[in-house]
C-alpha cells in the first residue's frame, strides 16, 4: 500500500510586503510590492509533501475568501486529497499579514478566521484516514482541543506523530505542553520554543536547554529550526546541530513548513530522524529562494538534485571568490589548532575550548586582514588586536609565532617560569601582544582608548578586540559599548566568540539574560554582523565589510563551537580550562592530521 501522510492544520491567505528591514515600533517603512499568496502551516506542509511525491490528506477549514482563487491554488495537486477538508462560507478564511525582509527574517500577524473553527468532531470523522497513515502532522494554528483529539486518535493506532508548534504566543502555554506527552517529534522555531519554555533563545546551547525541558513533557525528538544557525535536534542521544544549506535567501516565509513536510516524508519512508532533518533543511533552504510559502516548494527530483549539488560543495560552503586565500586560512588555522594542543600538552594547564573556538578568527585577522609587521612589533601604524578574552592566549601565541613575531620554540615555554608566554597575554613580555589582558571585561574599553587615540593622531590603523560571550556578562563591557557608540568609533571592530559555553555551564544555564545578544548590541547602536565563526570566507567578508562602515563601531557576532576541530572536545564545557592528557593530545593531533608527537 502506498504511504499516506495526514496533515491537519491551518490554511491562510498570506498578504506579503517585502521591505529592506523590519520597521521599529512607531516606524513606517515602504515596501515596493504586495503579494497575495497561499499559506497557512497545514496547507504549506500538505503542498510540500505532495510535491515530494507522497499522497497526503489535508484536513483544515477555510471560509469566504478575501481574494478569490488563491489559497487552494497549489492544493489542486494529484497527490492531495481534500475529502475531509471543510469550507464554511459563514466564516472568513484565515489571513496572515506578513512583513518579510529576505535574510533578515519575517514577522507575521495572524487573523485565524476559519482555522479556529476546526472542531474535534470534524477531525474524528477522519479517523479511518489517520488510522492508515504512516505519519500524522498537526500544527497549533488550530484549536488545541482539536490537536489533542488528532493525537489521541493517532496514538490509538500507534501512528507516528509530528507536532509543529507555531503561534504559541497566542495560545495557552500549559495547554500546549499538555499535548506533548507521547509525541514522536516536535518541530518548532527558536522564537516559539522560547515562548513555550519562558526563555530567550539565540544560541544552540540555550536551545538545547529549552528542548530538554520540552522532552520532560514526554516528547521523543525535539527539533528546533534556528534560521541561519541551523537546526537543533535533542533526543535521548543528547543534542545534535545540523548546519543549514547556504543559499541566497529571498524570503524566509514557509521555510519551517517546507522543513516539516520534508521531514514527514522521510519519516514515512522509515528513515532515521537525523536523515529526515538533513532532507528538511534542504527543502527549507530551497523555499526561501522564492517569495511566498509555497511558490518555491521543490519536487522530489528538484530536491534530490539540489542536495547532490550541495553535497559536492560541502553544504554550499564552496569558496568562490578567494580560493587560494581560503586554502591558506585552512592550513594556518589547522597549524594553530595543532600548536594549541601541543602548547597545552607541554604546559599542563590552560584553556583549550576557548582557544580552539577562536582559531579561525585569529587566522583571518593575522594572515590577511590586519596590517602588521612581525619584524617591527611596536610599529606605530600597525593594526592592533586586543584579546579581551585573555584566556584564549594559546591561539594568539600560536598565530604570532606562525606570523614570525617569535620562534615556534617559544610556544613550548607557555606558562613556564621565566618564559615569555604568560598564562594570559602580557604586552611587556611577548612581542606582538598589543595589550595585557586576562581579567575579563576590560578589553573593549582599552580598544576604545586606542581607537580614540588613532583618531586624535589622524592615523588610519584599526583596532580589533576579541570578546568572549561569557565575558559580556561583565558590566564594564556595556559601559564600553556605550562609549564606542558615543564616539562613533568606526575604526574599531569587535568580534564576539559566541560559543555558548562558560565555566559553570552553558550561557543559558548560568545567565540566560545574556540573550538575545544580537538585539542587545543593536540596541547599543552598534553595526552588527552575524556569521559562522568557523567559515573563513564569512569571517573575511565580515571584517572587510566592517571597514566600510561610517560613524559606528562594528561587532561581528561569530557563532562558534567551543573546542572546534577536535571532535571529542567540541561543545564540551569540561574542556574549558583543562589541559589535554597525553592520550587526548595524541588523539586530538591525529584528528588534526598531525603525526605522532612526543610531549616534552
Amino acid at each position: 500500500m502506498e504511504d499516506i501522510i495526514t496533515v491537519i492544520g491551518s490554511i491562510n491567505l498570506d498578504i506579503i510586503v517585502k521591505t529592506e528591514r523590519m520597521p521599529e515600533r512607531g516606524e513606517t517603512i515602504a515596501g515596493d510590492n504586495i503579494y497575495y499568496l497561499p499559506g497557512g502551516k497545514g496547507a504549506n506542509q500538505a503542498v510540500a509533501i505532495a510535491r515530494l511525491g507522497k499522497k497526503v490528506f489535508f484536513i483544515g477549514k477555510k471560509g469566504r475568501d478575501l481574494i478569490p482563487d488563491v489559497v487552494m491554488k497549489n492544493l489542486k495537486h494529484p497527490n492531495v486529497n481534500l475529502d475531509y477538508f471543510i469550507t464554511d462560507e459563514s466564516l472568513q478564511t484565515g489571513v496572515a499579514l506578513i512583513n518579510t525582509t529576505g535574510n533578515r527574517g519575517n514577522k507575521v500577524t495572524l487573523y485565524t478566521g476559519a482555522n479556529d473553527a476546526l472542531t474535534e468532531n470534524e477531525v474524528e470523522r477522519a479517523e479511518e484516514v489517520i488510522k492508515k497513515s504512516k505519519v500524522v502532522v498537526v500544527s497549533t494554528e488550530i484549536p488545541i482541543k482539536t490537536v489533542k483529539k488528532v493525537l489521541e486518535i493517532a496514538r490509538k493506532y500507534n501512528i507516528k506523530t509530528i507536532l509543529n508548534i507555531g503561534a504559541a504566543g497566542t495560545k495557552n502555554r500549559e495547554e500546549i505542553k499538555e499535548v506533548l506527552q507521547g509525541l514522536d517529534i516536535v518541530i518548532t522555531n527558536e522564537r516559539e520554543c522560547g515562548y513555550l519554555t519562558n526563555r530567550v533563545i539565540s544560541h544552540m546551547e540555550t536551545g538545547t536547554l529549552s528542548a530538554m525541558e520540552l522532552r520532560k513533557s514526554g516528547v521523543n525528538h525535539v527539533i528546533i529550526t534556528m534560521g541561519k544557525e541551523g537546526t537543533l535536534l535533542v533526543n535521548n542521544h543528547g543534542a545534535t546541530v545540523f548546519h543549514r544549506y547556504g543559499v541566497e535567501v529571498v524570503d524566509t516565509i514557509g521555510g519551517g513548513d517546507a522543513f516539516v513536510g520534508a521531514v514527514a516524508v522521510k519519516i514515512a519512508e522509515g528513515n532515521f530522524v537525523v536523515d529526515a532533518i538533513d532532507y528538511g533543511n534542504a527543502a527549507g533552504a530551497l523555499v526561501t529562494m522564492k517569495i511566498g510559502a509555497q511558490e518555491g516548494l521543490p519536487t522530489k527530483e528538484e530536491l534530490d538534485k539540489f542536495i547532490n549539488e550541495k553535497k559536492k560543495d560541502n553544504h554550499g560552503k564552496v569558496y568562490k571568490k578567494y580560493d587560494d586565500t581560503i586554502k591558506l586560512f585552512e592550513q594556518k588555522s589547522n597549524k594553530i589548532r595543532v600548536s594549541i594542543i601541543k602548547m597545552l600538552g607541554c604546559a599542563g594547564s590552560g584553556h583549550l575550548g576557548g582557544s580552539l573556538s577562536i582559531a579561525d578568527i585569529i587566522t583571518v585577522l593575522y594572515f590577511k586582514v590586519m596590517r602588521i609587521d612581525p619584524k617591527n612589533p611596536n610599529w606605530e601604524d600597525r593594526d592592533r588586536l586586543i584579546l579581551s578574552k585573555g584566556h584564549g592566549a594559546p591561539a594568539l601565541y600560536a598565530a604570532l609565532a606562525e606570523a614570525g613575531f617569535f620562534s615556534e620554540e617559544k610556544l613550548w615555554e607557555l606558562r613556564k617560569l621565566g618564559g615569555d608566554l604568560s598564562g594570559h597575554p602580557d604586552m611587556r613580555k611577548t612581542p606582538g601582544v598589543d595589550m595585557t589582558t586576562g581579567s575579563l571585561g576590560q578589553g573593549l574599553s582599552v580598544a576604545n582608548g586606542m581607537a580614540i587615540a588613532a583618531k586624535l593622531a589622524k592615523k588610519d590603523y584599526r583596532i580589533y578586540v576579541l570578546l568572549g560571550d561569557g565575558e559580556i556578562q561583565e558590566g564594564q563591557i556595556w559601559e564600553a559599548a556605550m562609549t564606542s557608540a558615543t564616539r562613533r568609533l568606526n575604526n574599531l571592530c569587535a568580534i564576539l566568540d559566541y560559543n555558548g559555553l562558560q565555566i559553570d555551564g552553558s550561557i543559558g544555564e548560568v545567565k540566560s539574560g545574556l540573550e538575545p545578544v544580537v538585539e542587545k548590541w543593536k540596541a547599543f547602536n552598534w553595526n552588527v554582523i552575524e556569521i559562522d565563526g568557523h567559515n573563513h570566507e564569512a569571517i573575511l567578508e565580515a571584517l572587510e565589510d566592517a571597514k566600510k562602515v561610517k560613524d559606528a563601531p562594528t561587532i561581528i557576532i561569530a557563532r562558534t563551537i567551543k573546542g572546534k576541530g577536535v571532535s571529542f572536545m567540541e561543545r564540551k564545557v569540561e574542556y574549558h580550562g583543562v589541559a589535554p592528557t597525553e592520550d587526548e593530545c595524541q588523539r586530538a593531533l591525529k584528528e588534526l592530521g598531525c603525526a605522532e608527537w612526543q610531549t616534552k
Partner: protein
Amino acid sequence: MADKIKTTSMRNTYGDTLVRLGAIYKNIVVLDADLAKSTQTIRFGKAYPDRFLDMGISEQDMMSTAAGLAASGMSVFVSTFAMFGSGRPWEQIRNSICYPNLPVKIVVTHGGLSVGPDGPTHQACEDLAIMRVLPNMKIIVPADSVETEKIIEFLATYYESPVYVRLARMNTPVVFDSNYKFEFRKAIKIKEGQDITIISTGVTLFNVLKAYEILKQIGIFADVIHMPVIKPIDSEIIIESAKKTGRIITIEEHSIIGGLGSAVAEVLAENYPVFMIRLGVKDIFAESGEPDQLFEKYGLSENHIIDAAKNLVKNSTKIK
C-alpha cells in the same frame, strides 16, 4: 579657625594648569566621569573639546580607556572623585594600568575627610592604602595649589609609570611660594627641630604648621616634614629625622591603616624603630559635617597634634 588666611582651590589650579599645558603638549588627553564641573577638568574640555572625553558615569570603562590611550602614546589625565577613582575601578587600575605599567595620571579630587557634608559615602579615607599596594603605582598628595601646579606640570611629560594624585575638595591655605620645586623622590623639610618629628601629607600640613608655632611656645621644637610623595617614599629623610628626634607623629586625612602612617612605620620598623603616633581616621566611618568640624572630631586638628606631641615627649625616652 580665626586666622584670615589666603586660601585657594587646588581644583581650579588643576583645571587651569591643564589648560596651560594643553597648549604646549598636544598629546594631553583628559578624561572625566560626569564630574568635570567639580574636578574642574571642564576648563580643559572647553579649551580643547577634541581632547576631552567625558566618559559618563562609568569609572571602570574610563580607567581602561585611559590605558588604551596611554598605550598609544598619549599623556593621559583621568579625573573623578577619590572615592570613584580608586575603589570602584581598582581592579581595572591594577590589571589594565599598573600591570602593563601604562603611564596614566589619575588625578582625583574630593580626597579624604574634608569632602565634608556629603558624608562617608564620599569621604575616601582608604584610597591611599589601596593604591599604595599596587606595584608600579606612584602616589602624590599635594598640600596646596602652588604644589598642585608644579606636580601637574611635572606629570605632563612623565611616562614612566602610573601615578595617583589626590586633591582636596575644600579651598586650602597657600603654604608654598612660587620658588617651590617639586622633586619626585624627595620629601620637603619645612621646619628644623630636635624634640619631635611631625610628618604630614596633603592639606593637613597647614594644621601641622599651626601646631608647630604653639609647641614652640611651650618649648617643644618639632622637625616638620611634608611628604607629598607617599610612594616611592623618601626613607632617608625619615630615618635621618628619627635619629635626631627619636619621636615621630604622622598625620593624614586618611585611615591610620595603610596610608602615610603605615608607610612611615614600615620604614622605621625595618631601619630605625622609634616611638610613634599615627594621627588619622581611626578605622571608622566618619559622618557629615564641615571640614574643620570633622578634623576636630576625628583627630586631625592642631589640638590633636599638640596633644600627641606633648604625650610623646612626656612618655617616651629618646632612643639615641
